[in-house]
């Protein structure tokens, strides 16, 4: 079997409708659908007329033996055909455009607020315990953290959210990027100083 090629074997032995799941279907106009302003033609995959009338298409080589490979192939193709049928004719939601997730907004707001809060807290802890006392970069860190927290609070209000949708997510991304960048700079730079230390001290 493998000498002649599996695909070749399948092509010669499987019924036509299993070789091609669309063999018994044709894509044609099935009616009209009303869209605002005009009527549009509606197209769909439907069974061919001859199949509908009982004249099933060629079922392949009648002398072919149904070995285990053929049966497995038939099963797989049958399942694919079922999946295809479901995909084409199955139920769909009426609205398929972009969706706004309230949970995403709330979680993004919470993430950016927590980032800001953590930034403020570690800065004041560093300022309190550092041997060099309070430095300019601590003030900058606290200001950035409070700004992030305040911005995410404002972005959660109905007025701001109505004017700039998705601002919560944007602030969360900016906060996360700054946090990761600051940590990366501190770890990988030669003097192990944070961004604000380099800028303000």
């Amino acid at each position, binding site marked *: 079997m493998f000498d002649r090629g599996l695909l070749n074997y399948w092509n010669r032995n499987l019924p036509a409708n299993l070789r091609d799941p669309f063999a018994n279907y044709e894509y044609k106009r099935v009616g009209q659908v009303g869209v605002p302003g005009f009527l549009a033609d509606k197209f769909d995959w439907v069974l061919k007329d001859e199949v509908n009338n009982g004249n099933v298409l060629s079922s392949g080589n009648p002398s072919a033996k149904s070995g285990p490979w053929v049966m497995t192939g038939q099963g797989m193709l049958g399942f694919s055909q079922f999946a295809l049928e479901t995909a084409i004719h199955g139920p769909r939601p009426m609205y398929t455009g972009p969706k706004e997730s309230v949970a995403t907004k709330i979680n993004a*707001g*919470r993430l950016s607020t927590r980032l800001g*809060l953590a930034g403020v807290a*570690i800065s004041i802890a560093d300022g*309190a315990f550092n041997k060099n*006392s*309070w430095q300019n970069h601590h003030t900058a860190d*606290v200001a950035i953290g409070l700004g992030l*927290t305040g911005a995410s609070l404002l972005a959660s*209000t109905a007025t701001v959210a109505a004017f700039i949708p998705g601002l919560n997510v944007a602030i969360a991304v900016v906060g996360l990027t700054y946090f990761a960048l600051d940590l990366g700079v501190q770890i990988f730079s030669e003097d192990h100083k944070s961004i604000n230390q380099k800028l303000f001290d």
Partner: protein
Amino acid sequence: MIYDFLYAFCYQLNEKLKSNDSKFYAGTFVIIVIFFHAFFVIVIFKSLTGDYIEKTIGSPSSKYVFLPFVLIAMWILERLFKRRAGRIITRYESRSIVSMINGLLIFCIVFLPLLIGVMILKK
């Protein structure tokens, strides 16, 4: 308790601004204030005891050393105020505490300890 008042103020302010997560932001505000007050207490303790803290626990090599402690404290305080939220909101439900005078008072409660702490450290 002063923190309950701060929570209620921030909650009512958020409700007025039509925030979609008023309880969370009120809790966050109170956590920030608690951190500021803790900073003030540490600074006062440090100024009274000299270099006792530095000799005991040393000086941090990076500010991110504090991150695990901060995250744990945030988690505990968030849970605490989530549990207390209902009681606080009910207590202040009947009257509106969002006013200019209360706002100024809260500004002092929040930022004065931080400013005084920074001034002591910079002295």
